[in-house]
């Protein structure tokens, strides 16, 4: 059995780093056994081709050694949690890149397994030296793991409707976020994207928060109610304001000014320019949050911007993949706000498209939300093929919106139907469909 040694560097902004060497598995024999079991499980899962092994190993480790998550997180400094309805995986990758550029060795859950078991897997299966962690966390799970993981930094991106059959109310997730923020250690900080009132309200509960946003962008959904009192929100000089209880989102410390894919970031006493691979307000918001988080953690502002701009594709999102003589652009769109984001990023495109809904458990099994997507934006596509096990729901929505559509539940046939060889097409897919597409076309 391996004894894994890791170098832990504790650092705080403005202080010099003092390397300390500890054993990650110093805690108990049980933890060592848990690690062994988890790693063996991961290896078996990967060898047998049954996936990444990103959740089961964590579950086993927790079974073998209850509480292993908290102990595995000890010594990782900084430890950052990234949460939100959309953009978690991307922002986690961008921040990880920025920290690596500054010489950190980062543990992360890059494949997006973001429940407790996925976090445990990431921490106990990690091999090699690591001094810090950047973990994306499911928005409902985040408040439940903050106590164990004791993050130095919480990055809060956005909150809108998603998987209502599981989460029921966005507002209750927002309330749990605020409670989590109020319970952060006094050393901990929050970086929050300020476009969603619920996110602002949660961040305002933290000891210290850096609010970031994209100038002039209208991001997010479900903004009608005041996060504090529930009254209908009004606006004051273009920003949300409650006429009832006077709640406001508060000042913005970091602002992004976007022109297409070019972004200027200003705040925290710095100013940088960067060019992003995706020209959309949502991607700019993610990059801004990652940059603000990195700078808050002491990374040089220019180096952080360069590293963030250097990340071209994250987990196949927006990837252009060759498949049977065609180019398929993979677009993950799993809720109304996510669709807004993707439709903004591909606005003007006249490629044929496939829209696929599986509505599995990770997607939410009620497809009603699809009626809140402004699908008329696809009217300029020569054809849109409705696909997935819920192809009939997609077809009706397209028909009612006046989009020229075909129906083909099978994804491979749908892609072939949408675009001939030599052409390029877009696939807009919910989470389950997106993963299926990656298995089919690669990326």
């Amino acid at each position: 059995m391996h004894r894994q040694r890791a170098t832990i560097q504790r650092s705080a902004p403005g202080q010099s780093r003092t390397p300390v060497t500890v054993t990650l598995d110093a805690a108990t024999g049980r933890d060592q056994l848990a690690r062994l079991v988890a790693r063996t499980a991961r290896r078996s899962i990967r060898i047998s081709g049954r996936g990444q092994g990103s959740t089961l190993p964590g579950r086993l480790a927790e079974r073998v050694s209850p509480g292993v998550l908290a102990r595995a997180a000890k010594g990782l400094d900084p430890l950052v949690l990234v949460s939100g309805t959309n953009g978690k995986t991307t922002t986690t990758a961008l921040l990880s890149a920025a920290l690596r550029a500054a010489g950190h060795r980062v543990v992360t859950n890059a494949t997006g397994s973001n429940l407790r078991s996925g976090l445990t897997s990431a921490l106990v299966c990690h091999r090699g030296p690591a001094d810090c962690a950047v973990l994306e966390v499911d928005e409902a799970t985040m408040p439940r793991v903050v106590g164990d993981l004791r993050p130095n930094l919480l990055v809060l991106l956005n909150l809108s409707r998603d998987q209502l059959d599981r989460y029921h109310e966005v507002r209750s997730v927002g309330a749990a976020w605020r409670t989590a923020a109020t319970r952060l250690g006094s050393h901990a900080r929050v970086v929050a994207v300020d476009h969603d009132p619920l996110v602002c309200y949660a961040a305002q509960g933290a000891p210290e928060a850096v609010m970031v946003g994209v100038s002039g962008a209208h991001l997010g959904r479900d903004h009608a109610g005041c996060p504090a009192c529930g009254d209908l929100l009004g606006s004051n000089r273009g920003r949300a304001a409650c006429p009832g209880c006077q709640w406001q989102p508060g000042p913005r410390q970091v602002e992004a000014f976007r022109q297409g894919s070019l972004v200027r970031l200003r705040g925290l006493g710095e100013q940088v320019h960067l060019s992003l691979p995706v020209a959309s307000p949502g991607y700019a918001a993610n990059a801004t949050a990652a940059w603000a988080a990195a700078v808050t953690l002491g990374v040089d502002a220019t180096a952080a911007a360069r590293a963030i701009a250097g990340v071209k594709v994250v987990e196949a999102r927006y990837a252009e993949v060759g498949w049977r003589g065609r180019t398929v652009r993979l677009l993950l769109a799993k809720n109304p706000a996510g669709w807004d984001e993707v439709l903004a990023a591909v606005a003007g495109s006249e490629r044929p498209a496939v829209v696929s809904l599986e509505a599995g458990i990770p997607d939410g099994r009620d497809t009603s939300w699809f009626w809140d997507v402004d699908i008329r934006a696809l009217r300029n596509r020569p054809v849109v093929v409705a696909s997935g096990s819920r192809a009939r729901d997609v077809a009706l929505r397209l028909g009612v919106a006046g989009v020229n559509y075909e129906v083909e539940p099978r994804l491979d046939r749908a892609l072939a139907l949408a675009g001939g060889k030599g052409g390029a097409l877009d696939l807009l897919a919910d989470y389950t469909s997106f993963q299926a597409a990656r298995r089919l076309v690669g990326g």
Partner: protein
Amino acid sequence: MPPGKPGTAPIRIGIVFPQLLGTYGDRGNAEVLAWRLNARGYPAEVVDLLAPDPIAPGLDAYILGGGEDLLQASAVKLLLGPEGRGLRAALAGGAPALAVCGSLQLLGRAYLDGAGRKVPGLQLLDLETTASGTRCVGEMVARMADGTLLTGFENHGGRTRLGAGLQPLGTVLRGHGNNGEDHTEGVRQGNLIATYLHGPILARNPALADMIAVTILRRRGIDAPLPLPPIDDDPGEALHNERLEAAGFGQRRSGRLRLHARPAPSGRDRAAATEPHAGS
């Protein structure tokens, strides 16, 4: 195809307070209704009735959706006040309306919100809703009195009991319905239909949508036949049949739905997910 009367204004279908009562995609009901009317040659349009503007009383139909607890409470406050006068008058005058989920609750005598507070409703329906520890979540199938099957997705914590004189919209064959006990689903009172079914319900149930469409047309003095003429390659019919089959129920024939010999799956279809989204 019977044309809409030349020179008449298009049929207007209002969505009531979509910012407050728009959590569950129920605006699709208005879109589908307008589309089915347009497809038959009757010009129709969807109008967003944004809070807190007063609701106009003269629309042809009103669609009310499901909202979150606090937003629903804000909506009730407005609907009981001067902003809601137009809607109350329209409903009292028999305007066709469809109220889904939270809106079913708020049209009643009272309901309990998530915090257990009793909130007085609009008193338009003799029903009352109490809270319950568990939510009713999952696919539902119900049968209307004329045999038509309804398919939809329910997601509610409230338990609704109908007053003695009220007719339910349907009988639950699968799922929970109003309260999970008496097999009633929704309510129908004159031209007002209230239901727990999302999907949206009119997207998944074209026969119900057409029934409402005919009510709208006749109130306009247009002699529309029921059933309305079929729509070519109707994607609504295709969706209806696909959803019923997925739930283990039969095929639709000549406007009626029949059960296969297969027995209805018993009531439970809770979200399997206490441990949700396991990632990749």
